[in-house]
Each structure stands twice: as structure tokens, then as C-alpha cells.
């Protein structure tokens, strides 16, 4: 008769090894380069073609004209599904992926981010 417990050896061997899990949040995993995280917007590059708005599956982007050839973007990150189709659709690379993945918020309003075009660079509201 065969004796059960064939995995016991493996289990005992691993009891001497460090855990396979990461000690999150003290140790954070490094994301790969093409990770699809939080999207950032560059108002200087935007030409207002609204291809990102048309292609977004989650209706999470609004682009508004705020002056002569000046645009600002409003993101609904609570709706965003992080597919990064907007990054692919943008002809001028005004939208970019970041590696940021810790996106949980207590207040839903904090997920609504507006990138204002400003004389001295980009002003993000609410500030990260």
C-alpha cells in the first residue's frame, strides 16, 4: 500500500525558507516598464483632437478648451479601467502611463483629477 503525504517533504523543506510573499506595504513590488498605472496628462502637448475621449471604454476622460489652443483634462480615475487605450490613441503623446498603482482613496472626489494648463507648468487639482 502506498503511503499518503507525498508533499510533506516539500512542506518541511520550505519551513526553513523565507516567505514567498512580500512584506507589503513596507516592501513594494517594482512594476515593469510598460505597466498600465495612473495616467498623467501634459496640457502643453494636447491639441484637443479628443481621440482619447472617443476611444475611452469607461468614459473617464473629459478634455475642455480653456483658451486659444489651450486644453485641460479631467480624469475620473474611479471609472478608469487602466487599459491605457487613451495613451495609444493620443497622436501627440500628451497622455502617459505611470508606474503608480496605489490608487485607493477614502473620498471619491479625490479620484477626480483636473490637469490645468498654467503659465508655469501643469497644476494638478486636487494635488497628489
Amino acid at each position: 500500500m502506498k503511503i499518503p503525504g507525498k508533499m510533506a517533504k516539500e512542506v518541511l523543506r520550505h519551513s526553513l525558507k523565507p516567505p514567498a510573499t512580500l512584506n507589503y506595504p513596507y516592501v513594494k513590488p517594482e512594476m515593469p516598464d510598460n505597466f498600465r498605472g495612473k495616467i498623467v496628462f501634459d496640457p502643453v502637448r494636447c491639441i484637443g483632437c479628443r481621440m482619447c475621449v472617443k476611444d475611452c471604454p469607461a468614459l473617464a476622460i473629459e478634455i475642455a478648451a480653456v483658451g486659444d489652443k489651450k486644453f485641460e483634462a479631467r480624469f475620473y480615475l474611479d471609472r478608469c479601467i487602466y487599459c491605457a487605450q487613451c495613451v495609444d490613441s493620443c497622436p501627440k503623446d500628451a497622455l502617459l502611463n505611470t508606474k503608480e498603482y496605489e490608487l485607493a482613496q477614502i473620498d471619491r472626489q479625490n479620484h477626480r483629477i483636473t490637469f490645468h494648463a498654467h503659465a508655469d507648468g501643469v497644476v494638478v487639482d486636487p494635488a497628489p
Partner: protein
Amino acid sequence: MSRVTIPLGPQHPALKEPANFSITVAGEKILSTSSRLGYNHRGMEKACEERTYIQDMYLLERICGICSHSHSTAFVQTVEEIAGLDVPRRALYIRTLIGELERIHSHLLWLGVAGHEIGFDTLLMYSWRDREVVMDLLALLCGNRVNYGINTIGGVRRDITAEQIAGALRDMDILEERTRYYIDIATSEPSFIARLAGVGYISREDAVRLQAVGPTGRGSNVAIDIRATDPYAAYGEVDFKVITDSHCDVYGRAVVRLLELMESYRIVRQVLKEMPDGPVTVKAPRKIPAGEAVSRVEAPRGEDVHYVKGNGSDKPERVRVRASTMANIQAVNKMMENNNLADVPIIIAAIDPCFSCTDRCVRVIGGKREDLGWRDLRRHGISWYRKHWGIDFGELNRKLHSLRGER
């Protein structure tokens, strides 16, 4: 002995998703079972008609969290067929590669779930730890661990670099070594064999008659595999075996999945080695011409069928999806016969069910067949709930709108 009918589900600890099984038992023995689906209908096919082809791709990818690449591949293949696009070979190879990596992660996940359902949680812990290797590899290649988003109409969205190929080959070595160990466990651990052998028996004839697909059919010696019988992507150019097993029970399905993992490593290695050079995408038109097409893809759970009808605009006229669980659910009722009630969780888990992928609305509302638009469906739903349950959605809707903001 008197007969008792026991309802299992829609909410039950053994089921990861809602489905209902009415099980008639005499003592502990199951006499007959009837299953009922429809608790998780998400209206995806109708929603596709309201979205553009590009938006549909992401929506349909989210039909299933496990076989998401299979669904998006099936959809883009139909759209490419309607539009007459010639997809670059490199893109087809990358699709094949991601499809196989998806199969590896799905089969390792199933092995863990099966271990959990039979009380062998050690197997769950170790197989899921090893699954992390392929999940991280998918994140490296596609940008995310689930819902890879690699497909686009006319090719793939991301190219693969030489370093990524080297990394993938290294990961394949690790996974192959671990899979050999699991095959050894599955074929020699007496408690594993004793628990699964003879459970959920379905003969080859019944599996063919009830149209079981994927590992469920192959576990009953039905050599049906869309990758071999109707090759898509680059499967026509790679060499692999269709794994079948003649046990016809849950043990046979476990063996099929484990041996398929070894075939998947072989396919991945071939694809990485023979990856042709060239572009990964062709420019796709936004407006797809009128026409219709059907495409079949071998998802990890079995055959996945997509039908798309285009009308010349940028939105499809009709999208129809048949996920693999829909084909396998009939076989489950047959498998349950003459088993013990305690075997129900593992028999259901053995087809690797995905009930929310399966739920499609097919009921004809009203006496005659008619086309209902979004507005009519909405009106029908609101009046139905008001009439039958006294629920007024007007107030709830207003609350929802204020929660969502101005839109």
C-alpha cells in the same frame, strides 16, 4: 429511500459565482440534477452595440478575468475578418504566446482550486505560489497581471524585446520543473487519486452528445481542440499534441490539464524561438464595413465562440458570445448522477466553471419576437420592477447620478 431535492446555490461557499443546482438525492446518492443560470447577467452583448469596436474590445476582454485574452482574440479575429485586415505574422505569434501563458496561469489556478475543493490545501498554496511566476511574466509582457490588453484590431499593442524573450525562457524552465513535480504528485499521491478517481464519470459518448468542450471533453477522450482542428493565430505553425485521457472522470480532467501545461511550455518555447521580425500592427479603419463573421478560440476552459455583425458604422450591429462554460454546463448534470452529495463541489469545479461569462439573456419578452432598443428595455425594466416588487427606480437613479457627479 425517500427522495429529497436540495438546492445548491445561488449563494454557496463551494461556488465562486452564483449558479443554482437542484440536486435530487436518495440518502447520499445523487439521482438527478438540474442547473439554472442567469444570476449574473451583465448585458454585455447589448452594451457592445452602444460602443465603438475599440471600446468593445476592452468590454469583451472583461467578460472573464481568467480567459480574457481568449475573448479579446476571438473578437478582434472576427472584426479583422469582416474588415479584411492582413494581420502581421509577428502579431499572430505574440497573440499565441499570450494565449499560452494565459492557459498556463489558468490551469495552475484550476489545480489549486481543485486541491482546495478536495481538502488538499497544500496543493493550493504551492501551485498558486508558482502561478505568480507566469502572472509576473504576463505583467512584464503586457503591462498588467490580469486583463492583459495586448490585442488591438489589426495586431497587438506591444512588441516583445530580446530581454523579455530571455526572461520568458528562464521562467518557462522554472515552471516546467514545478509542473513535473505536480504531475508526479498527481500520479502517485494515493489520497489525491483516491479522492478523484471515479468521481464525476461521463462516458465518451455522453461527452460527445452533450457537447463538452475543452479539458472536460478531452478528459473523456474526445480529441477536440480548436488550436488543432481549426488553427488560428500561429497555432498552425507550431508543433504540439492534443492531450486526451481515457479516465473520463475528474482525475482524467486533472491529468489532461497538467499534461497540457507541458505542451504549453513547448508551444511558448517554439513561439519565442521562431518569432518572425516585422511590424506588430496594421492600421485598422475606425468604420468596419457591413458583414458578419464567426471566430473560434480555444480558451483554457474550452471553445469560445464570438459572432459579430457589422453595419458599416464604427459600432457593431450585433455581438454574440458563447463562453465555454455554456457548452460544458449540460455535461455537469450528467456527471453528477450516482455520485455522493459531497462530490458536488469538485464535480462543478472540474469543468472550471465561469458562470458570469455564460449568462446571456435569451428570453423573448412579450408574445411575439420583436427588437427592443435600449430605451424600451429600460422602460420595460422600470415598469416590471414597479409592478412586481413595488420598487421605484426613479429615486435610486437620482441618488446614483448625484454619486457619479454631473454625468
